[in-house]
């Protein structure tokens, strides 16, 4: 077997009580019915047979699925390490106990800031206090807790306090992820993009905290790639390690892949996961290096960054096979530089964020 998927992201629903303006869900939701529990169970079993070890249960908000504990139990039975990726809204003691009994391995809660007013403004809901209570319940019941905080111009200067919040909640992992500018995030990029000075200060803060916290918990800092000169190795390469199944059963090489036009997705209702992973045009489209244009094709980095991100290339150049415009050698790097100079020139002004809508 040439390619093996290691992790499956299961987007159980697009419903969510939050309205974060950088949500990774698509701006245009696909049509179709949510997969039923029985269909998910088959997907989990097929994924395990393909070699998948990790399952992320996500959404939208996965707690909106009332059959969540049943799905966790099925994942556990398939041998998958199961992580619930949640806003924590609706995570009370009873549901937690049910999830723990079903064999859930860990819980990742999103926080929008350490500061309640700011957090609620970003989430578009009174959420922060409820998240704090849920996080404490998670630790009381003895489940491992991770935090994910998305960073952007409005909260990135609070990084020290955000890290302190994670410490106070007894986490095993803190993921500090700068907004990636696709979908909702792209719509809001003029409001969310940090300045170069902010990014440099945050990187130094994260790096010092990582050293200080070594042996206590893992701190992961995801760079904002617009400020880099080389692209990120997106998904460790298209169709190399990861797959996503969205709420209506489409199988995606990356969670944002529906943003690429002219890319057809197979559906678990019609095809086996093994067929889709191994044989489908979608998963094979950008595997290897044959598809690469110049300058990627002759670049010594081509097996390291894989030409960057296909969704970002499609979004910013109109061509999914183009070199990621973040790359200093991309003929389209000027597109990214224009965004950055716009940030540098703008004082922090607000025309208001476009809130994510539910389908």
């Amino acid at each position: 077997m040439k390619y093996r998927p290691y992790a499956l992201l299961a987007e159980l629903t697009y419903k969510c009580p939050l309205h974060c303006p950088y949500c990774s869900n698509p701006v245009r939701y696909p049509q179709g019915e949510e997969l039923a529990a029985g269909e998910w169970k088959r997907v989990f079993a097929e994924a395990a047979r393909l070699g998948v070890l990790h399952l992320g249960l996500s959404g939208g908000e996965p707690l909106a699925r009332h059959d969540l504990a049943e799905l966790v139990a099925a994942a556990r039975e398939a041998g998958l390490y199961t992580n619930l990726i949640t806003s924590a809204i609706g995570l009370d003691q009873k549901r937690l106990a049910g999830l723990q009994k079903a064999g859930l391995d860990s819980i990742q809660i999103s926080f929008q800031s350490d500061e309640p007013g700011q957090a609620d403004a970003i989430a578009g809901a009174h959420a922060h206090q409820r998240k704090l209570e849920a996080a404490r319940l998670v630790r009381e019941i003895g489940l491992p807790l991770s935090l994910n905080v998305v960073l952007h111009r409005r909260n990135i200067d609070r990084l020290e306090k955000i890290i302190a919040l994670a410490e106070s909640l007894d986490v095993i992992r803190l993921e500090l992820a700068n907004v990636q500018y696709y979908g909702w995030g792209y719509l809001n990029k003029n409001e969310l993009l940090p300045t170069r000075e902010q990014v440099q200060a945050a990187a130094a803060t994260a790096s010092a905290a990582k050293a200080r916290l070594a042996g206590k918990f893992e701190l992961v800092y995801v760079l904002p790639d617009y400020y880099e000169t080389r692209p990120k190795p997106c998904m460790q390469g298209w169709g190399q390690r990861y797959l996503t199944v969205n709420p209506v059963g489409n199988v995606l090489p990356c969670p944002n892949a529906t943003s690429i036009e002219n890319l057809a997705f197979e559906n678990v209702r019609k095809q086996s996961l093994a067929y889709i992973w191994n044989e489908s045009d979608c998963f094979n489209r950008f595997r290897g290096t044959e598809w690469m244009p110049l300058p990627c094709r002759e670049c010594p980095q081509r097996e390291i960054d894989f030409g960057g991100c296909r969704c970002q290339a499609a979004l910013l150049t109109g061509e999914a096979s183009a070199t990621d415009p973040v790359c200093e050698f991309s003929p389209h790097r000027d597109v990214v530089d224009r965004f950055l100079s716009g940030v540098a020139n703008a004082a922090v002004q607000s025309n208001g964020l476009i809130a994510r809508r539910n389908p």
Partner: protein
Amino acid sequence: MSHVDLNCRPVLASHVRLKIDPVSGDPILLFPEGVLILNSTAHDILVLCDGKVSGHEILTALSAQFEVDEPTLRSDVVECLADLLQRNLIIFKS
């Protein structure tokens, strides 16, 4: 390197699962967003890490199992436990 006291009783951290990779047959540790492929020494040590037996007792059990001189075995066990501790994959019960 983290300090390893062989009087302590090591146990997998609550977020870590030890299993055999069904594809490769290798022993692995699974934790959020991560996999660690274990060599056979690390696996032999970890199956004994139940939070009930001490580092010394693990050493004794392994020396009965393998024909390795005590100092080498001791240094292997200490090194392995220190590495896992540094990665937050095990905890020590005192």
